[in-house]
């Protein structure tokens, strides 16, 4: 499973942030949300940044104590809060800003797909966030991630340079 993000459909309403943080903290608290919508108002472009459950996950690779492990059921990379010691190497390494740090608990946190039923997907009315299941999507997903997120930013950066 992974969250498929389509920035073309995102309206920038940020309900995903609100509900994600509410599920985790019982408060609307965007810095404690696993998803974060980058807003480029002038271009009317909104890009939800969250963990893409990478095949080759940099966060898990750099974790000095191997606290980031794949959930066998959801295939989500999950941070073992008992093992995490708060060094923030994962935060510094994820190109998508997919891992955040909770200063109150001294632990990193990230999207765990809500155990397979993500809140953000349920509240995303335009359908910019979708849960995609099954192993056959892996390759398509890779393409999608690259094209949608990184490529988009990259090309767009070139254009706006003029």
């Amino acid at each position, binding site marked *: 499973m992974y969250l498929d993000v389509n920035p073309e459909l995102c309206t920038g309403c940020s309900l995903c942030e609100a509900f994600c943080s509410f599920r985790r903290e019982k408060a609307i608290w965007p810095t404690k949300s696993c998803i974060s919508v980058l807003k480029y108002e*002038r271009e009317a472009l909104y890009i939800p940044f969250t963990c893409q459950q990478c095949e080759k996950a940099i966060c898990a690779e750099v974790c000095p104590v191997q606290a980031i492990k794949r959930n066998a059921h959801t295939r989500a990379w999950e941070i073992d809060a008992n093992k995490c010691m708060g060094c923030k190497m994962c*935060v510094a390494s994820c190109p998508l800003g997919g891992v955040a740090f909770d200063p109150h608990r001294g632990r990193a946190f990230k999207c765990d797909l809500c155990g397979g039923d993500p809140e953000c997907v349920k509240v995303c009315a335009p359908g910019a966030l979708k849960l995609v299941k099954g192993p056959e999507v892996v390759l398509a997903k890779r393409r999608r991630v690259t094209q949608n997120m990184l490529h988009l930013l990259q090309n767009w950066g070139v254009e706006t340079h003029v």
Partner: protein
Amino acid sequence: MRYLIIGNSAAGVTAAEAIRKIDTKGEITIVSDEPYPAYSRIFITNVLAGKARPENILMRPPGFYEEFQIKAVLGQKVVQIDPANHEAYLEKGAVLTFDRLLLATGASPQLPSVPGSGLRGITGMRTLADALEVAKRIEDTPGLPVVVVGGGLVSLKVTEALIGRGGEATLIVKSPQVLSQMLDERAAGIIQRRMADAGVTIRLGCDLRAYEGEGELEAVYLEDGQEIAARLAIVAKGVRPNLELAQGAGLHVNQGIVVNPYQETSREGIYAAGDVAEAYDPVRQQGSVNAMWPNAVFQGEAAGLNMAGQRVACRPGTRVNAASFLGLQAASVGRVRPLDGDEEEVVVNREGYYHKLVFREEFLVGAVIVGDIRSIGHYRWLIAEQKPAHFLRRELGRKIYNFSAYRLQVAPWCREA
């Protein structure tokens, strides 16, 4: 194929794993002068603080070496390598042979050579042994006067650990600010205020002149003549790569062991990775030793894959730091101070919160953050991969949350949903 890896930390262990992924039969040997199974150096100050035990900071679970069929030669130092005969000599006389060699020998603390530096009670803070020794010393003698020399990450972590144990520490910093490599003046100011509030004495812009004592440390003298009573001096003034083996083998060495993107040194079959290696840095546009944990992992993996016969370039690395002190998060990547021709954009600058970006033409070349640091990884990627990032400028400030005040309890209808 016989693989010999000298060094048992981030680069060495990652390399061994990468080799094993490809070559299931080859002999892999890891040698280290430290006696412990691989641990995370990052967390030795947690051990010092009493917040972790050595077994909590292991890099890999017990049984790792058996599982990956790695022969671990621990607590033994390699004193010389002979590249022509493919041999490495251990201190105690044994000889190890190899077809491929990885130098992941890391770095050692730079101890200033001032008068009295031979006294007992002066230590670096680099190994688990250092942390355990200092912890024991402090437990044995409560109220021991301690000075911490240096203003870098390690110094601050040590200081936080000491005051967390109820001790007191004086921090001696040569630069006019703490974390001069990692933060600019304003960001450092936020950290310094927080430290002062926590009761830490910081002496800025003042270097150490001498240690004083008879056999054992009793005091330190500063450049301005001030004397500070100290029975223990913990020195963290940066590290220098352990180059002795490479130099002895005639490898091309600059600040570190010079490597290409495949982690190859100037001699075929010999590779280097981690804090000892000097690789191309896209921000500095020259070779650079970036002694950072993630870089060591990336380089170790690339080295391992290439040693086992693949041809894989390492991810471009640049300097990135993320840390928290006394509840404040701070992070930076690339240049923290603009050079000529760079443009600096301060997005937020207010009490406890700071966000600055440094641009050069359409590229991001540096960032400093105090507060929510989650975008630092994205900035690192934009910088290291040299992606155009001009668009960031026009949106500055839009995605910066109020860190302390914005906390609304949601309406009851929402709870029921």
